[in-house]
């Protein structure tokens, strides 16, 4: 509780702040499972109404009106300290909505792209999305039973991503494994920020 009730003379402030990390990847890859394994609350679902041009997308020939679609997002919450709350948002299953939903990626600290080696191509859209939006991301390969095991460099090559981008194996059903993924992401984000700071002190100063 951040305030004392019944004292109206004191200017009330809200000291806590929230940050977000996106968990992306293809349908059924374990996004909500990962959110649930580290969240302090049962994953919640929020919805947004997005407008899109329906023509040519759903093949509703002749209809060119804007339609409104409801898109859902599952998320969890981790209170890191009394003043800092981390929200983990699992991106909607249908990738085309990500581009319409500007707020989704806005000010995200970074992203985890979950991949399934049995159908690696299902995470290409997520990789593409974060590369275009210049949002730092890592790849976490969720190890399903009987899934082929690959080395990091093999996965990086298959995904066409830079070998600087952390690529790890994980089991998102396990809390410690999901936690390890988030730790890897944060260490990567810190290293990127330090690099930027070192390479362009002027930019940093201006910011």
């Amino acid at each position, binding site marked *: *509780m*951040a*305030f*004392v*009730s*019944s*004292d*109206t003379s*004191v200017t*009330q*402030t*809200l000291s*806590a*702040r*929230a*940050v*977000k990390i996106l968990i992306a990847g293809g349908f059924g890859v374990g996004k909500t499972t990962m959110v649930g394994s*580290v969240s302090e609350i049962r994953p*919640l*679902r*929020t*919805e*947004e*109404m997005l407008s899109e041009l329906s023509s040519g997308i759903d093949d509703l020939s002749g209809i060119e009106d804007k339609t409104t679609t*409801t898109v859902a*997002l599952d*998320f969890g*919450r*981790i209170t*890191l*300290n009394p003043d*800092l*709350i*981390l*929200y983990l*948002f699992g991106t909607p299953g249908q990738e085309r909505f990500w581009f319409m939903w500007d*707020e989704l990626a*806005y*000010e995200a*600290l970074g992203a985890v792209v979950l991949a399934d080696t049995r159908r690696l191509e299902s995470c290409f859209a997520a990789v593409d999305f974060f590369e275009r939006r210049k949002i730092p991301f890592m790849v976490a390969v969720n190890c399903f039973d009987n899934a082929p095991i690959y080395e990091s460099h093999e996965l990086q090559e298959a995904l066409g991503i830079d070998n600087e981008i952390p690529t790890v194996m994980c089991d998102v059903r396990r*809390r410690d494994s999901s*936690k390890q993924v*988030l*730790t890897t992401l*944060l*260490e990567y*984000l*810190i290293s990127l*920020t*330090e690099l930027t*700071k070192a390479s362009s002190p002027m930019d940093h100063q201006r*910011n």
Partner: protein
Amino acid sequence: MKMENEVWFDEDAGPLVRPYAVARGRTRPTRHDLEMTTLVLSANTDRHVNVDREYAHILQMCRRPLSIAEVSATLNLPLVVVKVLLSDLIDWGLIIFRSPPRTSDVPRIELLQAVLDGIRKL
């Protein structure tokens, strides 16, 4: 297919009518600085307030800081509608809010380090 002269009442009209009725048809909040990770908290006030059910519910649940996404999930209303309702409550001085830190905030590294420390302690 659009049927002329067709009128839908109550539940036939689907679940969207109620939230939009509460928001009085507005689909854009008066404030544009509300995001899904903006935190909101009920203002500390002794003023007696008489507000619609949805507003009262928000004030009740926001006795501790919640994100707009959590308010939306709990009320089962789309984010856009919740932002309209929260805009009203902010304008009436009944809710205070804090935006998420910006990328341009200088102590970026400290923020990331605090997130990392928190995750390690889980």
